[in-house]
C-alpha cells in the first residue's frame, strides 16, 4: 500500500491452531497460508504455486482438507486449523508421518506436509478404499519428484492401521 492511502482496516480474528488459541489482528487480504507462515512462524505448511494448483499448502480446517493459499484468514474466524506441526501427538509421529518414512514417500520433501495433511483428510472422509480411489482423491497434491507410488503405499499402510 502506498503511504498516501489510508491505513488498511485490520480485523481481529481468533483461531484454534493445532490445539492452541490464537488471537490475531490481520489485514483482510491475509491468506491462511501467510498467516500460518508469517504471523505464527508455522513454516511446515509450504507455499508452492500460491494459486490453488499444487496442494503444498493443504491444511485441515475443522477436520476437512483445504487449500490455505486460497483461504482468506478473516473468513475462518473461530475455526480450528490443523497443520503438519499439529499431527504428531505426545512426541510420537502420526501414523501417516511414520508411513511416509517407511515407504520413502518423498524425495525433496517440499510437497510432503501438504500430502500428509491431505491424506489425513482423505482418511477422515472414509471414501477411498482402493488404490485407484486414493490416487483420484489425492490428485490435488502434486509431487514433482514423482513419489506417487510410494505415497499411495504409505497412505494404504496408515489407512490399514486406523481401520
Amino acid at each position: 500500500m502506498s503511504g498516501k492511502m489510508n491505513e488498511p482496516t485490520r480485523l481481529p480474528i481468533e483461531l484454534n491452531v493445532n490445539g492452541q488459541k490464537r488471537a490475531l489482528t490481520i489485514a483482510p487480504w491475509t491468506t491462511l497460508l501467510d498467516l500460518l507462515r508469517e504471523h505464527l512462524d508455522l513454516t511446515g505448511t509450504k507455499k508452492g504455486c500460491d494459486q490453488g494448483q499444487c496442494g503444498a499448502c493443504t491444511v485441515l480446517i475443522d477436520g476437512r482438507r483445504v487449500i490455505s493459499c486460497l483461504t482468506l484468514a478473516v473468513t475462518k474466524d473461530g475455526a480450528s486449523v490443523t497443520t503438519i506441526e499439529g499431527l504428531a501427538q505426545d512426541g510420537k509421529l502420526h501414523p501417516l508421518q511414520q508411513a511416509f518414512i517407511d515407504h520413502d514417500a518423498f524425495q525433496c520433501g517440499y510437497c510432503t506436509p501438504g500430502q500428509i495433511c491431505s491424506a489425513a483428510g482423505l482418511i477422515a472422509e472414509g471414501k477411498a478404499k482402493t488404490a485407484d480411489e486414493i490416487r483420484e482423491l489425492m490428485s490435488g497434491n502434486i509431487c514433482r519428484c514423482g513419489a506417487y507410488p510410494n505415497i499411495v503405499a504409505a497412505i494404504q499402510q496408515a489407512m490399514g492401521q486406523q481401520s
Partner: protein
Amino acid sequence: MIGFEYARASNVADAVSQMAASPAAKFIAGGTNLVDLMKVHVERPTKLIDISKLPLDKVEETGGGLRIGALVRNTDLAYHPLVETRYPMLSSAIMAGASQQLRNMASVGGNLLQRTRCAYFYDLTTACNKREPGAGCAAIDGHNRMNAILGTSDACIAVHPSDMCVALAVLEASVHVTGPRGERVIALTDFHRLPGDTPQRDTNLEADELITAVEVPPQGFSTNYTYLKIRDRLSYAFALVSVAVGLELNGSKIKEARFALGGVAHKPWRNAAAEASLSGQSASEAAFAEAADIVLRDAKGFGHNTFKIDLARRAIVRALSQAARGTPQSQSSKKIA
C-alpha cells in the same frame, strides 16, 4: 492483492443491501476462484461481503426434487445420499472437477459463477475482451487448445470451466436468486450466456443479485446416465470435452434423451434437435453418431483446438453408449468403458 474492505453479512437481506451500497464489491463464499483472480489483479473488488456463514447450506426435498442451498459445499453435495441415489450424474460431474481440497471449499453458487480459465483472461499483458471490453481477443489467433468450438463470437472464444453445471443443464435445474428488486428464478440453461459482443458478462445474474439456491426437478436419470470427461491428465484438469447424458429407455428404444457438453462453449452446451433426433430410436452407435453430427454441424475450430470437433463427436457417441448400457464412467478408475 489490491487492498479491499471486508464485512460479514448477517443475513441474506443484509448481504443484498451491503452490495447495493457498494457496487464495486463482491460476495465471497468459498473464494477458490475469486481469491485466485484477485491475486493476479483480474478481479479488483473494493470490498468483500462474506456470505460464507449464511444459513444457505441445506439440501432439502421439494416434492420429488431437491433444493440445494447456494452455500452447500461441492463435496457435501456430491456425497449427499439423495444426490448419490437419485442424481448420480450430478455426483459424478462434481467429483470430476477440481481436487478434493477445492471441492471442500467451493460452494454450489460459486461453482455456477466460475470465470473462464482462458489463459489470456488471466494474463494482464494480453488482450482480452472479457477482462477489458474492446481490447480484442488474443486467444483467437493464439494458443487456443482449451478454447471453444461452439457458440463463439469474434469477441471471445472462452469456455465455461464447470463440470457441475454440465450435469445441472441436463437435469434442467433452476437457479434461485434474490436482489434489490426481489426474488426470481432463472433456468440453468438460461443462466450462462454466449459471449456475443458482451463477453464481459458470463451470466444473466445481475451484479447486485445473490444466488440463494439451485433446484433440481424430480427426473434424475439414475439408471441410464454418465459423465464422461476427457482431459490432458487423468485427474485435476479442466475438460477438453465433457459430456453429461441422461436417458429414459423403454427396452432398447430411447424414450427421452438429454445430453450436454462441457469444455466446448461459453456455457454448458445442449442441442434440442440432436436430442429430439434420438427419441423413439433404438439405442445404437449409428443413431448416436447422427446426434453428434447435429451438435457439431456448426462447430468451428481455431487451430490449436480444432481437434476438439472430432474429440467431441467421439465423446458424445461414447457417452451415449455408456448411458444406454447402464455403465456410467467411473471417476476413480479411469478406464473408459
